[in-house]
C-alpha cells in the first residue's frame, strides 16, 4: 500500500484534530470498551461516551426500547453513575485509548451542567465535551434547555466560562428553527454543534392498548430520521461558521458522505452500532474509497459541496 496516494482523512473541530471524520454517538457506544472485541477502536476519529450527570441516575423504568420501521425509540433517560464515578472508575480505564475521548454532559439545572463540566475540565485526556441540551427522555432539564434560544444561550455561556477546551453543543431536532438555535449557541461560545439528537416519538401496543415505552414518549433514531437530520445539518451548516458534526440514521459510508456534502465536518454513528458492531471501520474505509474514486486528495474537499 502506497501511503503517499491515500487521501488525507484528517479534519479539525475546534481544538481537536480527528484522524478521520468518523465518531461514535453518545449512548450507543458505551465507553468504547464494549466494542473493543469487534475492531480497533483507536482507529476512530473520536468516541463520545455516555451521557454523564452530576450524580448517579437509574434512568427510566423498563421497557425503554421499541422497534419501529427503520429505527427504534428509546427512553433510557441518562442512566449513568455520575461524574465522580466517571473520574474515579471509568476515566483511568479509557484515558489511554488513542483517539479523542469526548464526554457527553447532561444535567437538570445549569448548576449541575457547570459542576460536571468543571470537573471534566481537569482531565488531561478528555480534550472536549459534548453538551447534551437535547435529551428527550428526562423530566427536568435535557431537551428543555435545547428547545428555547434563551436557555440554550444561558447554559452554553455558563459552561464556556468554566470549560476551557473544545465545547461541542448537541442540538435537538424538536424545534421549529434549528438554524436559529445553532446561531444562538455559536454566539454563546460553542466551538462546534452536533446534530441531531433523537426526535420525540411514540408507539402503542394495540392489543394491550398501552404505550410500548414506560415513559409513553421516547427518542426516535436510526434510518427513519436520516432525511430530517440531513436537512437540518444542511440548514445549520449554511447558518454558522463553526464546524458542524452530523448524525442521525447513518448506517454506511454513503450516508456519512451525504452528511459531509451537506456541510458536516465530521459525523457520528449511533444506532447502526447495534446492527453491526463493526460498522465504523467499514464507514471509514468507504469514505476513503469514495475520495479515491472522486479523485479527492483531502476529505475537506467534499465538505459542504451542496
Amino acid at each position, binding site marked *: 500500500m502506497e501511503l503517499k496516494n491515500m487521501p488525507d482523512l484528517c479534519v479539525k473541530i475546534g481544538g481537536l484534530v480527528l484522524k478521520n471524520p468518523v465518531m461514535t454517538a453518545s*449512548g*450507543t*457506544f*458505551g465507553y468504547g470498551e*464494549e*466494542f473493543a472485541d469487534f475492531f480497533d477502536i483507536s482507529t476512530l476519529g473520536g468516541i463520545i461516551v455516555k451521557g454523564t450527570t452530576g450524580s448517579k441516575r*437509574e*434512568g427510566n*423504568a*423498563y*421497557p*425503554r*426500547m*421499541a*422497534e*419501529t*420501521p*427503520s*429505527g*427504534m425509540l*428509546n427512553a*433510557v433517560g441518562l*442512566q449513568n453513575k455520575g461524574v465522580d464515578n466517571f473520574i474515579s472508575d471509568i476515566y483511568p480505564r479509557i484515558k489511554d485509548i488513542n483517539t479523542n475521548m469526548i464526554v457527553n454532559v447532561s444535567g437538570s439545572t445549569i448548576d449541575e451542567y457547570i459542576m460536571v463540566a468543571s470537573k471534566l475540565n481537569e482531565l488531561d485526556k478528555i480534550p472536549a465535551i459534548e453538551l447534551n441540551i437535547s435529551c428527550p427522555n428526562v423530566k427536568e432539564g435535557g431537551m428543555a434547555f435545547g428547545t428555547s434560544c434563551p436557555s440554550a444561550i444561558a447554559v452554553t455561556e455558563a459552561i464556556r466560562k468554566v470549560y476551557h477546551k473544545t465545547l461541542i453543543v448537541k442540538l435537538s431536532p424538536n424545534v421549529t428553527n434549528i438554524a436559529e438555535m445553532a446561531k444562538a449557541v455559536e454566539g454563546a461560545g460553542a466551538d462546534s454543534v452536533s446534530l441531531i439528537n433523537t426526535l420525540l416519538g411514540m408507539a402503542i401496543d394495540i392489543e394491550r392498548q398501552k404505550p410500548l415505552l414506560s415513559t409513553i414518549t421516547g427518542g426516535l433514531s*436510526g*434510518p427513519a430520521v436520516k432525511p430530517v437530520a440531513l436537512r437540518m445539518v444542511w440548514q445549520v451548516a449554511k447558518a454558522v461558521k463553526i464546524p458542524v458534526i452530523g448524525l442521525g440514521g447513518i448506517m454506511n459510508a454513503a450516508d456519512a458522505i451525504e452528511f459531509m456534502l451537506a456541510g458536516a465536518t465530521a459525523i457520528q454513528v449511533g*444506532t447502526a*452500532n*447495534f*446492527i*453491526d*458492531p463493526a460498522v465504523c471501520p467499514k464507514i471509514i474505509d468507504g469514505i476513503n474509497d469514495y475520495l479515491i474514486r472522486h479523485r479527492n486528495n483531502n476529505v475537506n474537499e467534499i465538505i459542504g459541496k451542496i
Partner: protein
Amino acid sequence: MKVVSNKNLNTKYFLLTLQPPDNMPVILPGQFAQVEIKDAKNTFLRRPLSVHDVDYKNNTIKLLVQIIGEGTKKLSEIKEGDSLNLVYPLGNSFSTSGADNVLLVGGGCGIAPLLYLARLLFEKNIKVTTLIGGSSESDILEADEYRKYGDVLITTLDASIGEKGLVTQHSVFNSDKFPYTAIYTCGPEPMMKALARIAKEMNIRCEVSLENMMACGIGACLCCVVDTNEGNKCTCTKGPVFNYKELKGWS
C-alpha cells in the same frame, strides 16, 4: 455462519444448525447470540436467541426458535447453505456447580437454553431432570434429546401429553420428598416467578433466564435493564441468567 440445516419441528418451531468459518469460541450454557435478520421490512434490530446446543467436534451450534413475528418468520425461511450473521456468545451463564440434583424447567421455547446446560451438568455427574411445559403436545420439543441426560417430565394445558396443567402444577412439586437442590428455568415470566416462589419455600437455589427486549446485546445501549437489589442491570451482560433473589419483586 453457514446454515448447515434448518429443520421445521412443526408449524411453530424450527431448529437451525450453524457452522462458523473459524473455530467456535468457548460457549457457556445460557449464553445467547444476536442474530441479524436480512430483508425483513419491519425488522430493524437483531434478534436475541439462546444457544440451544454446541457441538465442538463438528464445530456447530444449534438454535431452537419459535415463530413469533416477522423476524423469526423470516429466519424460519432460511435455507441450507445460506449464511447468517451472528454476534455471539453473549451474556452470562447458568451455574454448573453447587447443586447435585437439578430440576430444569422450560416453558415452550424456554427450553432452548437448557439442552446444552443439561448435557454439561450430566457430564459433571450432576443429576438432571427436565420438566417441559406447553399448551399442547406440539409445544413439547426435543423431549428425546433431554432424555439422554436424565428423566423428562411433561405438562400440557390440554393434557395431550404428560400431566394436565401448568408446569408448576406438576405432581413433582406436591411430593413430600422433593429431591432437587436447584431449579434452573427459562420461559414466560409468570411461570418463572411462580417457580421462584416455590424455590423460596423449599429454600433451594433458583436461576431464571430473562428475555428482556434488547437492542445492542453487548451492554452499550442500556435498553434491556432489569430492576435488581443493586439498581438497574443490563440483561444482556449481567444476565440473561439471574438468581431470582437479586431481582426486585421476585421474592
